[in-house]
């Protein structure tokens, strides 16, 4: 449990990281550093996107699986690490 705390703290302290959140498969934010409404929005939308991405990867090659999803936008980068039950989402501002 403390490992979890440590890991999340370490991630949050990296340069450029705006927010970190852990969401479960039902879209409930377990742990978040941003406000609730933003978290819920990210959770819902990214969950669907991750499912779609995973099914795409597996459709092309059934033995493949999604390990990581990165969405780079004008303002920042959203990184999603999926698991069977949970999603670890980090929003980072890559240094320009």
């Amino acid at each position: 449990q403390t490992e979890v705390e440590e890991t999340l703290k370490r991630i949050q302290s990296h340069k450029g990281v705006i927010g970190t959140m852990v969401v479960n498969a039902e879209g409930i934010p377990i742990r978040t550093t941003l406000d609730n409404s933003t978290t819920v929005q990210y959770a819902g939308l990214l969950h669907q996107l991750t499912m779609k991405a995973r099914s795409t990867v597996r459709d092309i090659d059934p033995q493949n699986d999604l390990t990581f999803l990165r969405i780079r936008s004008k303002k920042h980068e959203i990184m999603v690490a999926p698991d069977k039950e949970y999603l670890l989402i980090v929003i980072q501002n890559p240094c320009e």
Partner: protein
Amino acid sequence: MEIVYVYLKKRSEFGKQCNFSDRQAELNIDIQPNPELAEQFVERNPVDTGIQCSTSMSEHEANTERFEMETRGVNHVEGGWPKDVNPLELEQTIRFRKKVEKDENYINAITQLGSIMEHCIKQNNAIDIYEEYFDDEDPVEVTEEAPSAKTINVFRDPQEIKRAATHLSWHPDGNRKLAVAYSCLDFQQAPVGMSFDSYIWDMENPNKPEIALRPSSPLVTLEYNPKDSHVLLGGCYNGQIACWDTRKGSLVAELSTIEFSHRDPVYGTIWLQSKTGTECFSASTDGQVMWWDIRKLSEPTEVLIMDISKKEMLENALGAISLEFESTLPTKFMVGTEQGVVISCNRKGKTPAEKIVCTFSGHHGPIYALQRNPFYPKNFLTVGDWTARIWSEDSRESSIMWTKYHMAYLTDGAWSPSRPAVFFTTKMDGTLDIWDFVFKQCDPALTLKVCDEALFCLRVQDNGCLIACGSRLGTTTLLEVSHGLATLQRNEKNIASSVFERETRREKILEARHREMRLKEKGKAEGKEEELREEETATDLEGLVTKAEEEFFEVIFSELKRKEKDAMKKKQKP
């Protein structure tokens, strides 16, 4: 040999129902093979035949009916909490969360994911993969690609009764929106039930206009205010000026009073440069140019009558059909008239007579478009009758450059805002021509058939890449031109300015020559008059005739007399 089978039926049995019955097969004829016939054929060896062993398939095309789509967003409010947890109660949610965090799965998952995530974060921080690496290198020399343009989008008039798109205006910031004015310009041909609405379209959504503007009379022109992108100015078919604020809705925000407005459709409206950003002026075929302040549209601030004899008589006025104003030359403006004359005017003139400075005539018909070159404002483009002409302010007698006479009437034209030598014209047969006079001078660099009906108006976006043109059935087509036609070529400015100067000089020389010749002729005519005055003899025809008769008879009489004398002399000499 014929094979004949005779079938007999009694007349009384015609029309009787058929009674079919089964029968054995009968051999009617049996033709045996005749080997002698084989002599008439030549055997071909080898035989070449194509065979394919695959399933035969056929291809069909089908076009589905247009699908109306609408984009809507979904807003998530709260996650999928299990039934026993009330999301509003903080205690319960905290308890749930704590429970999850104690789960072993959770711990393992997070540790694993955490390490992957850290790796990626560090990657991001180490290198910026979207950095511009080759900025300092000079831009690549433009390869000689053929100029081309392609249609990106088509905006159709959603009304049942189609109106012509008579004017287009791009949104001043970002150019994401296009305001289109629809009206029927045929004299008194507007069909009953035609809607008066004009629309503002968003580039992203060609299915439905973003905002509809509802005037009391169809709009002939529509312009965005370059200073305030929410305000639009429209000129109506009945001569009124209307003003909209898109934040306030689609009904008219301000409308000018009928008594003080124009008497004919308003063909040109342009916003003026002013501190308040509320001044504009309009022109109409009733021969007047009016200045307005949109805060008070009840009457115009100033009226000018387009009478080139400078007598301020409305009866003599020329109907204005296009207006031109360049914010870099704020005291001057130009008016294109129905009679084919461009009138250059000065706003600062104290009397109306002083306001009209000079005229340029050269077109045979109404001047539908008038625009100064954005790079060299002394030269301007006029489009009317079957040609497009380029003029220079210095050369008043004639245009300095002109296109050949086309087969179809030219309806609108515009300079490219990014290249001084490129301009666009639209024609009544639905084609758009792109002219580049440093590339080719006798023909357009590119001709495109945009649609089958006539194109009425044209507007180029500020970056020079996108062109919108409106047609007679209300269809606005958005085209993108190829890179080469929109980016400034190296040395182009110098070449264009030298072309203009050269042509202006040529016209000046020709003008001077004409003047000389005219003076000479005048001189000659005057000289001849002096000679004639010296001859005081009868110059009229009758006098000449009688004189000629007298002389003739005199000669005859003198001859007769001489003969008589000779005859008498002979007699006297026996």
